[in-house]
């Protein structure tokens, strides 16, 4: 492994930051990562969300997590967005580029990208 001293530096830098993060996360982004999702390309979609959310400094209000099979394998990669007080949004047949659009429009500015939702793809 790489030098653990570097890791120590990360730890020192992050101590204060982590406390702030706890208990927030108004928006939850969940990526389906079962066999169906993985085979359809969910891994780069998940990573696009993780990187995008951190680069756009949205990590205080958005958490990104993985789940198993959502049950609509033909629409994978599937991404669900949960927000308190709002109806769940299900994005289907996702890729990294579409993820970037969802981050910009939906997560940052609150506008659902209708064309990628399951409703627009049935």
């Amino acid at each position, binding site marked *: 492994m790489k030098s653990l001293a570097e890791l120590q530096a990360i730890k020192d830098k*992050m101590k204060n930051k982590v406390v702030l993060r706890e208990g927030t996360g108004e928006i939850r982004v969940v990526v389906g990562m*079962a*066999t169906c999702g993985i*085979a359809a390309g969910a891994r780069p979609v998940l*990573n696009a969300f993780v990187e995008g959310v951190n680069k756009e400094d949205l*990590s205080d209000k958005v958490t990104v997590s993985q789940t198993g*099979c959502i049950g609509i*394998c033909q629409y994978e990669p599937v991404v669900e967005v949960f927000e308190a007080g709002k109806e769940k949004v299900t994005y289907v047949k996702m890729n990294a580029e579409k993820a970037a659009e969802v981050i910009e429009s939906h997560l940052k500015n609150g506008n659902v990208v209708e064309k990628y939702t399951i409703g627009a793809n049935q």
Partner: protein
Amino acid sequence: MKELSLNILDIAGNSVKAGATCVQITITETDETFLLVFKDDGCGMTKEQVENVTDPFFTTRTTRNVGLGIPFLKLAAEQTGGSFSIESATAREHPENHGTTTTALFNKNSIDFTPLGDVISTVTTLIMGSPGIDWRFTHTYGEKEVCIDTAEIRAVLGDGVPLDSYEVIEWIKSSLEEEYDSFYNN
């Protein structure tokens, strides 16, 4: 699956679901062979489950009656002229030493050998998905070795910084990138 690393991501998910606290993923390469072993300390499988696990219509999941993860990996290995096996001990029968070991052996020089692909991304995705598990990933080829052990990383970070923090995941990623650079270029 387009890359073997995607099979790895998928199969390691079974260890997570089995409640494992430690999952070892080991790749051992020679000039001719590629050996992939998953070893976990999860709840294990019964004899009946082990016998049926390569049947695509046998699954533990409830959303539908198809389970393709293990059959995909078995096919990927066997299509190269390799082999596949699973050994398991249930927590009920072996409370002291339970878990599952899944082994896939590939013939690297077969035209049907699936390339490993982005295994770094697979490792970071697994750690992000289950930061509480001790993940030990080792890839050796003769004298050369790439290794990551989240127990060691957690020992440095202590309780204050979660393993799935973005900064830590980025560090793990660049650590693996550096190691793979010398792995493939020397």
